[in-house]
C-alpha cells in the first residue's frame, strides 16, 4: 500500500500541497517552540564577572517547600538572596581552600556596582590609575574610561570590560554602605576548585556560576518554559485542526477515485491504509523540511525576544536535535490523526458513486460527528465557566487559548450543519453572479463548511490573542486612572526627601514594585511609604482601613484575598523577594488589584529585600517645573504609572503572531485548494456563456458569504472566551476591544480570503474553457 500511496502522491502533487504546507508549518512551529522550551529547561549563561573564581558560594535563588504529597517544590525568587558575610570564616576553615573573596553587587546609575575587593573574581586588573581607597573614589571599566560619576572621583580604569554589564567599583566600605545589606554579601569566590559545603548557602561551579551572576536569565528561563509550552500546545492543536481540514478537503475532491477503488475490490480497510500511507509519507517529508525551517524560526524568535528584553542576550539558545525529532514525530501523529478522521468519511463512500456521472456528496451529518461536535460544544461551555473563575494570568492565559480552540473545534465538527442552516437563509446577491453563487453555495455546503473553518479559526484566534491583552491593559489602566490621586509621577531615582522640600508638595509616596510568594504562589506587590498615602493613591478600599499602616501590615486586593481565602485581621506568612520570610496582618482589602498589585506592603518591610530599592515617586501638589529642577528627577506622564503587563504583551504578540500566521496560511491553503478543484465547473460555466466577470463575481460572492459567516462565528467565539477571561481576571464580563483594531482584523481576514480566491480563480480561468473541460479529473 505504501508504494501505491507513493505513486498517488507523485501524481497528485497539487492536491496534497495544501496538507503538505500545513504540516510543514506545524513542524516549524513545534520545532521553534521546542527550542524555546529546551532553552528554558537547559539553557545556561556563561559567567562573566565570576569567570575567574572556580567556585562561587551564593544564596539559594529558589524558595523551596515540601508539598503535602511529600514532593519538594521550588520556585525562583524575584530578587537576589544574600548570604551572611560571616560564612567567609567557615569557608576559610575548609581544608584545601587557599583564597576567599567576597562580593556585594547592586545597581548604581546604570552600572552594576561592587566593592574593589571583588575585582579578583573576574579578575579585573587596573590599566591606569589605582584602586579606590577613600569613600569618594571609584574605578570604572574600560568602556567607561571617560565617564564622569557625580559625587565621586574616578581614580582608576580597568583593563577589562564585561560584554553584558557595565561595571563600577567603589571602595569596599563605601560599596557595603551603598548596597545596604549590613553583614551580608551577594557571593563568595573560593580558590582553588575544591569540594565546598556550607550551611545556608549553595555552591556553584562551571556555568552554574552564570545563573547566580544573571538572575534575570533564570527568570527568563522560567518564562521560556511556560511560553514555549503554551505556544507549542496551542500550535499543535491549531495544526491538527488545520491538517484535518486540508485532508478532509482533499478527500472530498477524490471521492470518485476512491469509489472506483472500492468498486474494483478495495476493502474499506485498504482505502484507510492507502490514505494513512499517503499521510505518513507527506508528513515525513514535511516534518523534516519543517523542522529545518523551525530552527531558523527559533533563531529569529530569539532575536525578537532579545530585542524586546524578554530574554537576556547572553542566555544561550540550546540547539539540539530534540525539538526537531519531537516536531517530526508530532507531525506524523497529527497527519495520522487527520488521516484517520478523513478516512472515516471516505470509508463510507459507496462504490456505486464511481458509476454515476457526477460525484455525489453526502449531505447528512454523520452521527459520530454530530455527537463529537456536541461534546466539543459542551467542552467549550465547561472551559468558559472554568475560565471565568481563574484569576491568575499564569492559569488563565493557556486556558483562554484552549477555550477558543475547543469552541472552534465544535464549529469545525458541526460545520456542514452550520453551512446548511446559513445557506437556507433567504438572502440573495444581485445579478447572475449572485444567483450562481447562491445556487452553488446551497449545492456545496460541505465545501462551504471546509472553507469557514480556517476563516473562523483565524478570526477567533486573532481576536482572542489581541483582546486578552487589551482587556487586561484597559482594566489595569482604568484602575490606575481612577486610583492615582497624585499630580506627578517621578521616575525611579528621585530622592523623596528632596521632593518633600519643594514648596506646595502636600504628600509624597515612594512606590516599589516587587513580588512575594505565599505558599510558593507568586503575588505582585507594591511597597509604599504609608505616610500621606490617601493623598497620592486611592486603592478603592472596601474593608478595613489603611490608617496606622506599618511594617507588619498588609493590604490585599479582593481577588488575592479570595484566592488565599483570607479576611481582615488574618495573619499571612509570606516569603519576600530575596527569600526572607515575613508575617503580616491584613489591615485592608481593596478593589483595584489590577492597577496596583495583589498586595500592598510597607516600603520599610520590603526595601531591604530587593535588588534595586529605588521606585517611582508619587507627588501630590507642587509645580512640575520645580520638581524637574531637582537633581535626578524625571517627571513621567500619568500613563507611565501603569507598567503592568505592557512589555509582556509584546512578547505575547510576537509568539502568538506565529499562530495567527499559521491560521492565515491555512486560510490561503484551503481557499486555493477549493477554488482550483473547481476548474472544470468554472470552464463549464464559461462554455455555456457565463462571462469571466460573472464567474469571478460568483466566486467573490461565495467567498464573501464564507467570510461573513466565519467572522460572525469567530467573533462570537472570541467574545464568549474573552467574557470568561475578563470575568475571572477583572471581575467584569465585558472585555475591551478597540473597535478600530477589530475592524482591522476583519479587514485582514476578508482581504486574505478574497485574494486567496481571486488568484487561483485567475489561474483556473486562464486556459480556454474547452481545453479545461477536456482535461480529465
Amino acid at each position, binding site marked *: 500500500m505504501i508504494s*501505491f500511496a507513493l*505513486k*498517488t*502522491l*507523485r*501524481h*497528485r502533487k497539487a492536491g496534497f500541497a495544501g496538507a503538505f504546507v500545513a504540516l510543514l508549518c506545524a513542524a516549524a512551529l513545534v520545532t521553534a517552540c521546542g527550542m524555546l522550551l529546551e532553552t528554558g529547561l537547559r539553557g545556561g549563561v556563561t559567567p562573566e564577572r565570576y569567570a575567574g573564581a572556580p567556585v562561587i558560594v551564593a544564596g539559594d535563588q529558589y524558595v523551596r517547600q515540601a508539598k503535602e504529597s511529600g514532593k519538594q517544590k521550588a520556585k525562583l525568587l524575584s530578587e537576589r538572596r544574600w548570604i551572611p558575610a560571616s560564612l567567609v570564616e567557615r569557608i576559610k576553615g575548609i581544608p584545601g581552600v587557599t583564597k576567599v573573596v567576597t562580593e556585594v553587587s547592586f545597581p548604581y546609575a546604570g552600572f552594576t556596582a561592587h566593592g574593589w575587593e571583588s575585582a579578583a573574581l573576574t579578575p579585573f586588573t587596573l590599566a591606569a590609575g589605582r584602586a579606590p581607597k577613600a569613600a569618594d573614589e571609584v574605578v570604572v571599566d574600560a568602556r567607561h574610561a571617560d565617564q564622569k560619576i557625580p559625587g565621586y572621583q574616578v581614580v582608576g580604569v580597568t583593563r577589562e570590560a564585561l560584554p553584558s554589564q557595565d561595571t563600577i567599583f567603589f571602595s569596599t566600605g563605601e560599596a557595603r554602605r551603598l548596597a545596604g545589606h549590613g553583614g551580608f554579601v551577594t557571593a563568595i569566590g573560593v580558590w582553588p576548585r575544591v569540594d565546598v559545603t556550607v550551611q545556608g548557602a549553595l555552591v556553584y561551579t562551571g556555568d552554574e556560576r552564570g545563573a547566580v551572576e544573571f538572575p534575570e536569565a533564570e527568570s527568563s528561563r522560567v518564562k521560556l518554559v511556560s511560553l514555549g509550552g503554551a505556544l507549542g500546545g496551542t500550535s499543535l492543536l491549531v495544526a491538527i485542526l488545520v491538517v484535518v481540514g486540508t485532508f478532509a478537503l482533499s478527500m472530498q475532491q477524490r471521492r*470518485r*477515485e476512491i469509489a*472506483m*477503488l*472500492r*468498486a*474494483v*475490490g*478495495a*476493502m*474499506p480497510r*485498504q482505502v484507510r491504509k492507502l490514505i494513512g500511507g499517503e499521510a505518513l509519507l507527506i508528513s515525513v517529508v514535511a516534518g523534516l523540511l519543517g523542522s529545518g525551517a523551525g530552527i531558523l524560526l527559533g533563531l529569529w524568535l530569539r532575536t525578537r525576544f532579545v530585542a524586546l528584553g524578554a530574554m537576556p542576550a547572553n542566555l544561550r539558545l540550546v540547539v539540539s536535535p530534540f525539538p526537531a525529532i519531537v516536531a517530526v514525530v508530532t507531525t506524523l501523529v497529527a497527519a495520522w490523526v487527520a488521516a484517520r478522521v478523513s478516512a472515516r468519511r471516505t470509508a463510507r463512500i*459507496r*462504490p*456505486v458513486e*464511481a*458509476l454515476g*456521472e457526477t460525484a455525489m456528496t453526502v449531505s447528512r451529518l454523520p452521527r459520530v460527528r454530530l455527537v463529537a461536535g456536541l461534546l466539543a460544544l459542551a467542552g467549550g461551555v465547561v472551559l468558559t465557566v472554568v475560565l471565568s473563575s481563574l484569576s491568575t494570568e499564569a492559569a488563565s492565559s493557556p486556558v483562554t487559548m484552549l477555550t477558543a480552540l475547543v469552541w472552534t473545534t465544535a464549529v469545525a465538527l458541526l460545520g456542514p450543519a452550520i453551512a446548511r442552516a446559513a445557506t437556507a437563509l433567504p438572502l440573495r446577491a444581485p445579478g447572475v453572479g449572485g444567483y450562481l453563487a447562491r445556487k452553488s453555495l446551497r449545492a456545496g455546503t460541505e465545501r462551504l463548511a471546509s472553507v469557514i473553518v480556517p476563516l473562523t479559526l483565524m478570526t477567533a484566534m486573532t481576536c482572542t490573542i489581541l483582546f486578552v491583552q487589551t482587556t487586561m491593559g484597559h482594566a489595569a489602566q482604568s484602575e490606575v486612572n481612577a486610583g492615582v490621586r497624585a499630580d506627578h509621577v517621578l521616575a525611579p531615582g528621585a530622592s523623596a526627601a528632596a521632593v518633600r522640600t519643594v514648596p506646595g508638595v502636600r504628600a509624597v509616596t515612594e512606590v516599589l514594585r516587587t513580588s512575594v510568594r505565599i505558599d510558593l504562589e507568586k503575588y505582585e506587590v507594591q511597597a509604599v511609604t504609608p505616610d500621606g498615602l490617601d493623598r497620592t493613591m486611592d486603592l478603592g478600599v472596601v474593608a478595613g482601613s489603611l490608617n496606622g499602616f506599618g511594617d507588619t501590615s498588609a493590604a490585599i486586593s479582593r481577588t488575592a484575598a479570595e484566592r488565599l481565602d483570607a479576611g481582615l485581621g488574618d495573619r499571612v506568612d509570606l516569603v519576600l523577594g530575596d527569600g526572607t520570610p515575613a508575617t503580616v496582618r491584613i489591615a485592608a482589602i481593596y478593589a483595584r488589584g489590577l492597577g496596583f498589585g495583589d498586595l500592598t506592603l510597607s516600603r520599610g518591610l520590603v526595601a531591604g529585600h530587593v535588588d534595586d530599592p529605588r521606585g517611582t515617586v508619587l507627588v501630590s501638589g507642587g509645580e512640575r517645573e520645580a520638581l524637574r529642577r531637582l537633581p535626578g528627577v524625571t517627571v513621567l506622564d500619568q500613563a507611565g504609572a501603569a507598567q503592568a503587563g505592557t512589555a509582556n504583551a509584546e512578547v505575547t504578540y510576537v509568539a502568538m503572531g506565529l499562530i495567527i500566521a499559521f491560521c492565515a496560511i491555512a486560510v490561503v491553503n484551503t481557499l486555493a485548494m477549493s477554488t482550483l478543484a473547481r476548474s472544470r465547473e468554472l470552464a463549464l460555466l464559461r462554455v455555456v456563456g457565463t462571462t469571466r466577470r460573472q464567474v469571478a463575481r460568483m466566486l467573490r460572492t461565495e467567498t464573501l458569504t464564507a467570510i461573513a459567516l466565519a467572522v460572525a462565528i469567530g467573533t462570537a467565539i472570541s467574545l464568549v472566551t474573552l467574557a470568561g477571561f475578563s470575568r475571572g481576571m477583572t471581575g467584569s464580563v465585558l472585555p475591551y476591544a478597540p473597535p478600530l483594531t477589530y475592524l482591522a482584523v476583519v479587514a485582514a481576514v476578508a482581504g486574505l480570503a478574497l485574494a486567496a480566491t481571486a488568484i487561483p480563480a485567475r489561474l483556473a480561468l486562464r486556459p480556454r474553457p474547452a481545453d479545461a473541460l477536456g482535461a*480529465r*479529473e
Partner: protein
Amino acid sequence: MTEAVRLDAVSKVYGGGQSAVAALREVSVGIPRGTFTAVMGPSGSGKSTFLHCAAGLDVPSSGSVRLGGADLTGMDENALTELRRRRVGFVFQAFNLVPGLTVTENITLPLKLAGARVDRAWLDEVVHRVGLGRRTDHRPAQLSGGQQQRVALARALVTRPEVVFGDEPTGALDTMTARDVLTLLREAVSALGQTVVMVTHDPVAASYADTVLFLADGRIVDAMTGPTAEKVAERMTRLGAWKR
C-alpha cells in the same frame, strides 16, 4: 448451460414511507455463462439499479442474487468487496483508472488489492488482446478515451471473473472508438468464454450482444435474442411510448 448470475424476485426500494421509490420490482432473470447480455431501457427504468444489484455493489431490498454459485443475500460490505474482487470485473463509463498508476499497474490493481499473484502469461495475453502492447508504461493522462476503456477492459478481464459488468462502457466514446471497444467485449465472450453484462442506451452497442433485456418501470418487459440495431431501436421506441 449454467448460469453466471441469477436474480430471484429482486426488488429495490429507495427511501422510505411516503417518498419510497421502487427502482426494481420483483425481477427474476438468469444470465447464462459465456453469453453477452445487454440491458436496455429508458431513463429511470431501473437498469443501473439492476446492474448494481447483480454485481454486488448494492444490496436488494428483497429477493436474492446468486453470482457464480455464491448467494449474495446477507453478505456484509467486506464479503461483497471480496466477491467483487474475485468474481466480478467492471468497466465504467469514465474515470475508470487511477491517474497515478501506469497501464500495467492499473490492470493488475484488483490482483494487488486481493494480494494475489500476477499470472504473467495471462496478463500479456489480455494486454495483447485489448491492443495495448506498447503502452504498458503510460499513464492514463497520456491515453485517449478509447485506450483508457481498453485498459479498464483489460483490468476487468485479468482476474478471470465470473462476469464482466459494463455501465455504458462506450457512453463517453465516439462511434469509431466505441465500435472497437464493443468488438473487444464481443471477442472476450466468443474467444475466451467470458460472461458480459452491459447496461446501455445505444441500440448499436446492444446489437453486439447475444441477448437484450428491456427494462421499464423496474420490470423486465421483454427479451430479444439475435438483436440488430434497427430491431432494438424500434423496440425502444415502443417502450418509450408505453411510458407516456
